[in-house]
């Protein structure tokens, strides 16, 4: 809080985030239940819509205060749509989003107030900046919209620039095209922090950066989290980066949650066959021990017409007849570790349900 302290003392619109905490430490910062979003499709008279992309199809999760939730999955699994729904960039078809005990969109927490608490950083650092605004105007824009006087907003922009490692004297007056990809992503991070949010959604925020720059930005994100007491929702397709950043990991497949749990459990000892396949698909870093067999064959199915039952059963090597008929619920296997696979659920009717643990690992 050191850098921004002098600004905030005079700004009643932005009380210290620690003072904004309503529900106490046990209350999840964000909790999402039954989130659904379908795109397109034709609505038949009386009945279901046909041909819709079922991007997010019933997702429940919670993020505790101060933790980093990593979300992984392949393209089309709904991880970015989930982020946009949580950010309220697009309205959900169904589902409830509760932020620190208050329902989003209710009278207690309208969208203006909510967006002060939750901010987002996107993958494409150039497309997400206005090319006609200088760096300082970009960062000061949010606070000004929320009623901070111009001078104070600019002062805060300069503080944040310094905080993300860009010297304000050199960078404040520049335009996005005058910056490198890594510098632009630092601007996006500074802009996200300008409203003093409590939750930051990072949607593939480092994926477009070169490896040597990616490491710098990951370190910066860790520093900012510690300094400002942030909570992250960190979306990435790179399991190594998620392993480094996340406390808990949620694996998604075709609009549903396949597995969620502490990151060391999910990434070292997964229970869902899809998570295991995803991990085995990472290129080996050992020249003498190369991957010899692809863990999965074929591409992920089309989310317009997802397979019935377990959505993964068409590619799963443990599949049995029951998997095509029965949709596995997301059920806890051990403490905070929950898996949506019939093999891990005793009495589900899957032949391997009894000896499930050993098999999936």
């Amino acid at each position: 809080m050191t850098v921004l302290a002098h600004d905030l003392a005079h700004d009643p619109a932005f009380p210290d985030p620690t003072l904004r905490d309503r529900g106490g430490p046990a209350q999840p910062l964000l909790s999402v239940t039954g989130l659904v979003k379908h795109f397109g499709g034709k609505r038949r008279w009386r009945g279901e819509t046909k041909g819709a992309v079922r991007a997010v199809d019933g997702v429940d999760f919670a993020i505790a205060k101060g933790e980093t939730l990593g979300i992984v999955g392949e393209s089309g699994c709904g991880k970015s749509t989930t982020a946009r729904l949580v950010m309220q960039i697009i309205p959900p078809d169904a589902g409830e989003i509760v932020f620190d005990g208050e329902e989003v969109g209710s009278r207690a927490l309208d969208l203006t107030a909510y967006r002060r608490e939750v901010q987002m950083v996107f993958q494409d650092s150039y497309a997400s900046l206005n090319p006609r605004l200088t760096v300082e105007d970009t960062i000061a824009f949010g606070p000004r919209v929320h009623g901070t006087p111009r001078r104070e907003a600019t002062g805060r922009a300069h503080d944040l620039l310094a905080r993300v490692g860009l010297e304000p004297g050199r960078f404040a007056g520049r335009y996005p095209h005058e910056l490198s990809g890594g510098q632009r992503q630092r601007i996006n991070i500074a802009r996200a922090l300008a409203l003093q949010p409590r939750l930051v959604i990072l949607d593939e925020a480092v994926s477009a950066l070169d490896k040597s720059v990616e490491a710098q930005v990951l370190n910066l994100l860790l520093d900012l989290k510690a300094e400002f007491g942030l909570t992250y929702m960190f979306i990435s397709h790179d399991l190594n980066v998620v392993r480094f950043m996340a406390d808990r990991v949620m694996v998604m497949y075709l609009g549903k949650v396949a597995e969620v749990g502490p990151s060391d459990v999910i990434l070292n000892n997964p229970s869902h066959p899809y998570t295991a396949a995803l991990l085995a698909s990472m290129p080996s870093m050992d020249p003498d021990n190369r991957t010899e067999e692809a863990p999965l064959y074929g591409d992920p199915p089309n989310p317009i017409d997802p397979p019935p039952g377990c959505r993964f059963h068409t590619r799963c090597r443990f599949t049995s007849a029951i998997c095509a008929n029965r949709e596995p619920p997301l059920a806890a296997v051990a403490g905070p570790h929950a898996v949506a696979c019939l093999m891990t659920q005793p009495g589900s009717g899957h032949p391997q349900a009894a000896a499930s643990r050993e098999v999936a690992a």
Partner: protein
Amino acid sequence: MSSLSPAGAPLVETKNLTVDFVGTGKPVRAVAGVDLTLAPGEVVALLGESGSGKSVTLRALMRLLPEKRAKIGGSIRVDGRDVTALSRRELSAFRGSTVAMIFQEPGLAFDPVYRVGDQIAEAVVRHERVSRAAGRARALALFERVRIPSPEQRLDNYPHEMSGGMRQRAMIALALACRPKVLLADEPTTALDATVQIQILLLLRELQRELGLAVIFVTHDIGVATEVADRIAVMYAGRIVESGACRDVIRAPAHPYTRGLLASRADHVFTKGTRLETIPGAPPDLTALPPGCAFAPRCAQARPACNAGVPEERTASPHHVARCLLLPAPAEDGACHRADATAAA
């Protein structure tokens, strides 16, 4: 550059290859003197970040760069022929039959308004002057080869009817249609999902082994390079800064840039909350390359001599070279131990 293969002449050999992009503003030196050799049946990975010149090098080998805007210097020999001297007609016979390329985005490499099978058959007919039926038979055989399910029906698909992984398989089939000796792969798996990427990498490895192809594989991902390559050449600011057997480069990187890249990978960190090791700064401006080692401004071990001139290749171990003054000078070849050079710094 030392070649690992003792068997005869190299299939691809560039000497002091340079590519300058001219046009508006200052010329950009994208490739600043690349010596690359590729033996028959060898797989070399060109590893580097964006702007390191890896893709431009690859395109120069097939002269795919716009002639007016890209000035190529130095020599390029592929299969015994001087590529820079080929006429337009010779070039179009050369592309596809001697050297073929696969790209990052197969959706852009195919013509969207023709069926995929017809596009492959057309290439065969054009190069080998056979009948359309023979061309189509070859296309079918190739589809089976790259393991596209129900290949007969898939030949009649338009590119948009295929998934990303299948389109990439179809593009590999197209590249292999005229039995090239050299396959150039420009980040062919970067746009694919993890579970599909590994399938394509394994397919390429299998085809390379069975057909005895020589492959240059451009990638920014060390893991991908490790999966496919016999030899890795690391590029930085238009030059190959380190080259050696895959095992040596990964296990005992000789150039500080390679060492930094390996150390900054997040999978090295096992304790939560530890910071990643990073390479400070950003890659240099290609319109104004420093006179000496281009990595010196970011290098923790840089010394004044590094800025005097571009370091020559020095040997780190047999067949493993790096352009770094921290390695022993070639005059004392073998006699001087690497530790001495570091101590002298």
